[in-house]
């Protein structure tokens, strides 16, 4: 946590961010970037010299949850992370100001192909390498969309074989960014789950069957209670993952991220189920969150990550 937070609490900043997130929602990426930058969100963790607010990651986590709850379909978290990671470089200021757009290809390229959840016609792309990461120019690269999971915002395979490199991160910097990214994306999916729980609770309290609301049925109540349980557990794990351990070392963010993703998938699938027929319409917006969470799961290679976490623990046991 930054010492320079002027007494501001993360929850207060998230509250303040809500209108900007709502306004940015559904807008073209460039417009959304400007709106969010004006509200200070893209640069929330960027240095003040780069036009940022220089706040700690706990603030970004609160914003991430807000963005997930608000179903913001714009890579705000990538902007926050890149504007912080490239501190002091021109690109950081431009991203914080909403003038440039960057996205992160978490898994790195394989055979020259990089998977992105949504490229938003961005300017720069961060490509993790064996050690560290390269920042490359997006312009001129060939993109292959795979639209079936999310027709409105298709996943993209970017051919980065001939990309122009315009910056880089060291291994240590990339490790920091990855940890932060896991925590923030964990926050995003947890916000999405919180929203799904709220929508479901409201819907089931209003929907009447046999003279009583559906929320009077124990099976429904228990499903919603389990959503709440998982929600609070995700939040607890994510908040903890950002705090330093007793020796002052950064904690492993992967278990919290993986838990949050698993919990959010369960919650969204169950929320859709509990909405009955309405749940699988395009009109009830639950499906957007389900697509987002599944894309995030894929983007980080959650399956592989879970194995690594286990392997590391087994080795150290």
């Amino acid at each position, binding site marked *: 946590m930054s010492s320079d937070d002027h007494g501001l609490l993360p929850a207060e900043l998230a509250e303040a961010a809500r209108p900007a997130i709502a306004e940015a929602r559904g807008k073209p990426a460039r417009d959304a970037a400007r709106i969010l930058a004006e509200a200070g969100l893209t640069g929330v963790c960027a240095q003040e010299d780069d036009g940022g607010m220089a706040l700690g990651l706990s603030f970004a986590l609160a914003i991430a949850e807000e963005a997930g709850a608000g179903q913001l379909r714009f890579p705000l978290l990538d902007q926050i992370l890149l504007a912080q990671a490239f501190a002091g470089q021109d690109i950081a200021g431009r991203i914080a100001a909403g003038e440039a757009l960057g996205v992160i290809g978490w898994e790195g390229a394989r055979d020259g192909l990089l998977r992105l959840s949504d490229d938003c016609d961005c300017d720069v792309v961060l490509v993790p390498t064996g050690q560290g990461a390269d920042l490359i120019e997006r312009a001129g690269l060939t993109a292959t969309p795979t639209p*079936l999971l999310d027709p409105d915002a298709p996943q993209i395979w970017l051919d980065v074989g001939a990309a122009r490199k315009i910056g880089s991160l060291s291994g240590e910097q990339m490790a920091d960014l990855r940890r932060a990214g896991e925590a923030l994306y964990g926050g995003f999916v947890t916000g999405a789950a919180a929203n799904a729980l709220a929508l479901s609770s409201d819907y089931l309290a209003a929907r009447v069957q*046999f003279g009583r609301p559906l929320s009077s049925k124990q099976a429904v109540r228990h499903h919603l209670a389990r959503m709440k349980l998982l929600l609070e557990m995700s939040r607890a794990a994510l908040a903890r993952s950002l705090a330093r351990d007793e020796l002052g070392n950064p904690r492993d963010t992967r278990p919290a991220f993986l838990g949050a993703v698993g919990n959010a998938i369960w919650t969204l699938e169950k929320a*859709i189920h509990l909405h*009955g*027929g309405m749940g*699988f*319409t395009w009109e009830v917006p639950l499906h957007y969150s389900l697509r987002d969470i599944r894309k995030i799961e894929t983007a980080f290679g959650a*399956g592989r990550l879970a194995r690594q976490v286990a392997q590391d623990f087994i080795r150290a046991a």
Partner: protein
Amino acid sequence: MTVQPVFTKSLQAMAPAEYRLHARSWLAANLPAHMRADSTDWRAPALEESVSWEARMYRAGLAGMTWPVEYGGHGLTLREHLIANKEIGAVMMPESAGSVGKELAGPIIMAVGTEDQKQAFLPRILTLEDMWCQGFSEPDAGSDLARLRTRAVPHDGGWRINGQKIWTSGASKADYCLLLTRTGTIEDRHKGMLMFAVPMSTPGIRVVPIKSIDGKVSFAEVFFDDVIVPDEARLGAPDEGWDAAIRVLSIERATNRMYRPWRFETELRALLRGLKSDPELAVLLDDGAVRDRIGQVLGQIDALKGFVEGSVEQLLDGAQIGARGSLSKLYWSECHQAFAGLALDLVGHVTPRSSGLAQRIRDHFTTAYLFARAETIYAGTTEVQLDIIAQRILKLPKDLQK
């Protein structure tokens, strides 16, 4: 009756093994590659292609097996119905475009319709000349039909209908709506229910499509504003019609879509073949967690197969099917939905450099995952099925026993 099935006589003379061979070889010879979801030639079939394909299946003796010959059916038994379903399940063909007619309207008309209605409607359901949609659900009435608000009031020797239906699949392409209304007030609850066969061309009907989670527009809301139908559109008497329909539906629930466990196995095989077609993906199948899940799925498929076959045996023995349909629907929907999640995980590894078949399989199972969200909802949610099992099968008391 305009079309005579081509094999009627010979079908009825076939032994089960012959019929099975006929079904298998006919499908192998006739299902076009572009209708096979596991073919790289696949493309989404147009409505007329689906209709034409299903009409051909019918003429080949692979639909309407148990319907009486006098109504265009093949006059076979549930045994042949099961055999055909197994073979249908063994290929990745599209879902039926005429299922509402064949699974719902047809059996209900058979149970409660007049002879004229049977003659008029039943053969055209099998030939796909008439498409039907279902008008039971309403925005505010799911399994609680006491809340049904669509009303039919007598009018000039016929009926005037007002109300609104939802989840009416295929409404925009349907010729008729199997419409459930009430004639009394909402306080009559389950009394005064009346069913109609309403031509969708009747003035006053408005169809508003609903886009679903998989991006398709297969559902609709249907509004009925002062829709006037003659008394001949009525299916059965008030009360009587609906009660009979309920009985019919409980049998249908156990005999419809018997192909499911065999299709489930075919889907699993298609997934594996897609992954095996690319060496970089094939290694995913060496993984212990993946193998555990596949082993589990195979056990579930075997159980569903055994359960369906057991149901057929019982029905052939003249037993009441009771609530067995709840067991198979529930088990299939949950297992299949979980399988769709596994498939999505696996196809997430497919890249544009992967084999063409792998990419086909990715596309198929991505959509399948989204559509599978509906499987625990339609035709009675998981919770409704569990309530039925507790109430009607286990007969668990809700109150203190004397």
